[in-house]
């Protein structure tokens, strides 16, 4: 896709022409809105941090001010507590099944092709079938049962 400045000017989002001058190669042009958003996000976060650094009152602290805010209640214990490994188990299982879903995207964009449909369906069935064994094991072991033990 050869891109000229004219086709960039036709894109309708704020800053398109400006960004187009900077970035004028290939399919990358489609990602200029993402770049614009990224620049705005960095500027917004940076400006707020900078403003609070410049305008914020420094040096006026006392133990109450330094304490963690707990809905107005005086803090009972330290916030630094040791967490149960159960949280980690749920998180790692989430990541593993998340990666399974990642493979569904390239699969889904090809599923519309009629000639390949049966083949793709069977291949994904094998893939998900193997992972289903893992899911079955997780349920059998009661790994996500919170109250157990």
């Amino acid at each position: 896709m050869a891109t000229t400045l004219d086709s960039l000017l036709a894109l309708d989002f704020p800053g398109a022409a400006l960004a187009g001058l900077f970035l004028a190669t290939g399919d990358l042009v489609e990602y200029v809105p993402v770049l614009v958003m990224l620049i705005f996000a960095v500027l917004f976060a940076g400006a707020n941090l900078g403003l609070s650094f410049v305008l914020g009152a420094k040096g006026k602290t006392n133990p109450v001010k330094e304490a963690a805010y707990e809905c107005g209640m005086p803090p009972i214990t330290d916030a630094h507590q040791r967490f149960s490994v159960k949280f980690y188990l749920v998180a790692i299982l989430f990541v593993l099944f998340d990666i399974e879903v990642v493979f569904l995207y390239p699969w889904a964009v090809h599923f519309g092709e009629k000639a390949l449909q049966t083949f793709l369906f069977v291949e994904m069935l094998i893939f998900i079938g193997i992972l289903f064994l893992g899911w079955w094991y997780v349920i059998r072991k009661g790994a996500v049962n919170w109250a157990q033990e």
Partner: protein
Amino acid sequence: MTTVLFVVFGGSALASALLAVTRKNPVASAIWLVGMFFGLAGVYVVLEAYFVAAVQVLVYAGAIMVLFLFVIMLLDLRSKQLDLEASPRMPILGVCAAVLFVVVSGMALMDAHDAGIFPDAAERATLVLDGSPEAIGADLFGRWLLAFEVTSLLLLGGILGAVILTKRRLT
């Protein structure tokens, strides 16, 4: 001007990585690591690997990062404990590990270069970069079909390992 973008994203990834390894507070290190993941995602976009970039943000900056934070909270390290366990030999060992990594990866790259894996200038001119989900799907369900199916075994191993390690005492 992809070169400029490459330098910006690559540079921010590198800076975030350096900040991540030099912070005293492990949570601050983890947050700088998020910045590194975003910089890397930007580099992937510049290389026209859009799908990999999206997955990088979703899986690494999203999910893997949560795991890192959980490990930090599981261990519940106080700065005092860290000071006690930090030996003066640690920086030396770190530098040794870094040098070893550079040497090994450099040798691997040189081997790959000698084997003719990298395209030469003529090949590069005709090379079409396509990192869209369509292109990845075509390769995944064509040439790399077996690798795709084996990936599910790898994930299964991860699931079993996680359950066995954390639920060892249950019958």
